[in-house]
């Protein structure tokens, strides 16, 4: 029990940066470059933690609080995500609501920190972030509700647990639709192409990256790590959903899960390589489309 909990936490805390490495490596392969080492993200974090920080004169404690609160809340959300075995450390009826709202908390503070700098670019980024997020939120809820209905449980672990295997046999179409819209939400929430380009260089077009322009040192480390963690959480949802809890032995399940995560990262990399960034005005349409898909899935289950 305790061992599993430790393992769970370990995986949750250590694995995420690797995802970034995998994504980058995939993209560079597509671009025909050699690319960064897989563990680059770990190096960056270590370096940033060692570096000092510079703060703008206009900022206040809000700016300093932003990254910490963001990372803390994402990590807290992680408590409810089962990465090893069936149940997460925390699982109760309706925990996915808490999950979603914790991510919202992180977003709220990141946006506030951005606004605290008084820079118009960061304000712009914050505006885009909160706007798109408030449209991604219903899509996330709807697809999770589809899972809940299909598995007949209201906890994240339950939705992504035993119940899935029979659900895939009875309500495959609905689950598939839900998976698609979840993937779209994941792209939007993690500032990925086609919604946002993490390593563009024109602030005017950025969303997430432009919000954190002024952060440096440990703060930036928190932000990068939080982003990785968030990506990991969404990936975990998708992977567990797709795998559908087929493997009986814990070890096999774990192996499958890790492999699935890597696969997710590669899929992400592919998507980013083959697609171009959408014009900002199209993003809402994409997100609303995702919600519509999930509503359709829900109708399939409820009628």
């Amino acid at each position, binding site marked *: 029990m305790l061992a599993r909990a430790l393992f769970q936490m370990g995986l949750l805390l250590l694995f995420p940066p690797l995802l970034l490495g995998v994504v980058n490596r995939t993209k560079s392969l597509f671009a025909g470059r050699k690319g960064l080492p897989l563990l680059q993200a770990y190096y960056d974090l270590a370096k940033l*933690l060692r570096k*000092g920080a*510079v*703060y*703008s*004169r*206009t*900022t*206040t404690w*809000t700016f300093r609080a932003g990254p*910490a609160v963001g*990372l*803390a*809340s994402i*990590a*807290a959300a992680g*408590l409810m995500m089962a990465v090893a075995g069936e149940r997460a450390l925390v*699982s109760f*009826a*309706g925990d996915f*609501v*808490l999950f*979603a*709202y*914790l991510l*919202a*908390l992180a*977003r*709220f503070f990141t*946006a*506030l920190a951005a*606004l*605290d700098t*008084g*820079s*118009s*670019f960061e*304000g712009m980024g*914050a*505006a885009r972030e*909160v*706007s798109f*997020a*408030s449209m991604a*939120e*219903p899509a*996330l*809820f709807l697809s999770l*509700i589809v899972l*809940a*209905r299909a598995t007949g449980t*209201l906890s994240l672990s339950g939705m992504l647990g035993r119940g899935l295997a029979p659900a895939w046999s009875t309500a495959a179409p609905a689950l598939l639709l839900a998976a698609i819209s979840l993937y779209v939400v994941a792209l939007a929430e993690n500032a990925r192409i086609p919604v946002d380009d993490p390593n563009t260089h024109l*602030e005017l077009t950025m969303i997430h990256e432009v919000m954190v*322009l*002024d952060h440096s*040192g440990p*703060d930036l480390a928190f932000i990068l790590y939080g982003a990785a963690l968030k990506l990991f959480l969404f990936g975990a949802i998708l992977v567990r959903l797709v795998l559908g809890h087929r493997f009986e032995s814990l070890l096999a399940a774990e192996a499958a899960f890790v492999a699935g995560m890597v696969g997710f990262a590669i899929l992400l990399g592919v998507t980013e390589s083959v697609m171009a960034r959408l014009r900002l005005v199209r993003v809402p349409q994409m997100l609303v489309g995702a919600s519509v898909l999930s509503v359709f899935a*829900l109708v399939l289950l*409820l*009628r």
Partner: protein
Amino acid sequence: MVPVTPALAVLAVVLTTASGLPGLLLRRRPALGQALSSAALCAGSALGLGAAAAVLSGSGGFAVSAPWHVPLGSLALRLDPLSALFLVPILGVPALGSVYGLTYFPQSLLGGRAVRLQLYYGLVTGSMALVVLADNAMLFLAGWEVMAVASFLLVLTDHEKAESQKAAFTYLAAAHAGTFALFAFFCVVGSARGSFDFASWNGLPAGGKAGWLYALLLVGFGIKAGLMPLHFWLPGAHAAAPSHVSALMSGVLLKTGIYGLLRTTGLFEAPPASWGMALLALGAVSGVLGVGLALAQHDLKRLLAYHSVENIGIIAMGVGLALVGRARGEPALVFLGFAGGALHVVNHSLFKSLLFYGAGSVQHACHTRDLEHLGGLAKSMRATSFLFLVGAAAISGLPPLNGFVSEWLVALGALRAMELPRGDAAAFAVLAAPALALIGGLASACFAKVQGAVFLGSPRSEHAAHARESPRTMLVPMAVLAAACAAIGLFPALLVPALHRAAATWAGLPPEALASPAAQAAASARWVSLVAAALLAGLAALVLLRRRALPGPSPASETWGCAFSAPTPRMQYTGSSFAEILTGHFAWVFRPRIRFQPPRGLFPRNASFASEVPDTVLDLALSPALSFLERIALWLRAWYPTRVHFHAVLLLLGLVAILSWRLLWW
């Protein structure tokens, strides 16, 4: 445990009602008078809160009746968990408000104006308490109307301002219209039951024509509660009043509408699911459009007022779910819906008052409520900005604060609707959950805008640049409210028993019937506390880590302007531009008025852009309709001759008409 006696409740009502008198009598020594008034109000509230707490924690309430010699009336009072639940905000918030008013609205400076305000403030408080205690229709209506008139006079505090006059009268007219709907309801039911005591109204049949009665209730109480599209009076009134009055109205007064809806629907025998679904739909509309309209505002208090519409929507969704649950006999739905709605009643009163007090001290310091002229106050008003941030996070439903708990309960209730048998249309109540998510997302966006535009960045005007922190008497009430928000958010499980009792009272079920969902909710709530604790622990750890990583002061510089090194405050992203993306998606219902003068030529002169969003219902539908009717009336009157001959002819015609009517009647 204090013995809950009617005398206690009556004493509370009397004390609060009369609390304005010291100020009136001691006009010579205003400071003392106001202090005494505030003390009286607090004392009365303390008594009432004690009684309410006792009832909520399980000591039985009371139901007494004394003869009241007016037609159809009787002095029937009842304090049951439902009333007690509403007594908490009704008595708690005004007490804090009167303390806040000591420096925000000092009698020593404002004289008669403040005296009048305190009189009506106490009157409103007492009458609201009377409304939730009344167990007789006439007594209820009396309290209801006194409440309306007194709050109207409160809105009219600055009666020289045209804005206040318009807002106040809109409010009074709307309130009166709503009351007339209630007249009709009470008449029908009362004459059917032959008595006007609520006690004799239990088990009203909900079938057949009862739908009309429900419609009357929705109109009568919906106007008071500010349900879309009956919210039209609300933004103006709340913006025009002084802030601690806005807090009272927005945080508490609206809830009496919810109370009325609960009390009356509680009387019906098994209301059909359609009632619940209707309320659910209304609530969802209010929630989404309310927050959408709020996003579009740049007057701080109007913005907060529209958020009341949103939160009332959430509450209505909860109540609607509970009604569906009663229709389908689903205890889980009943409990979760009711608990969510009722808890949100309390929560909203806490954080909305907190926010209005915050807005008050901002206005107090900067003499403006316009977001476009504020900014950077976090440096000059540290405490206010922190407390306001707590309120903002709470109203956005963010953990670990109270707003999350109630919204979570409502969402949970919505999800329970999925467990209804396949093919039951009521199962689509589950869509309330994504609606809640949307509302929550928009709300957090809106409050990111507010917090950013008011407190963060750099000042956009002289006043904002020279703002000073508000005195303690204004900060302490805010701190109390913030603490309450945090407490409820961290230990929600403690409230479940009280909500359980109230829900059982409302649904007319034995408590055991709701025991199991209550227990489940309590268990889940404990998990929520755990996660919240983990969150705080993690935060603490990170802060420590950062302190370890950054010993000593860090160097300071300009904000990175993307290679532009001389940023001015006017370059900041304004609140309007912040909300522009989202409000754009609501343009089909809001019809914003935009004055845009684009830059022209090679060396453009001053370009300008200004946008304002009129209230869709009031400004675009109601006022035009009314002025049209008035024109018709004037036109009719233009035809009315004034010669004495015509008067005689009128007499003659009247005679002939009645004669011929009589002949036809034969």
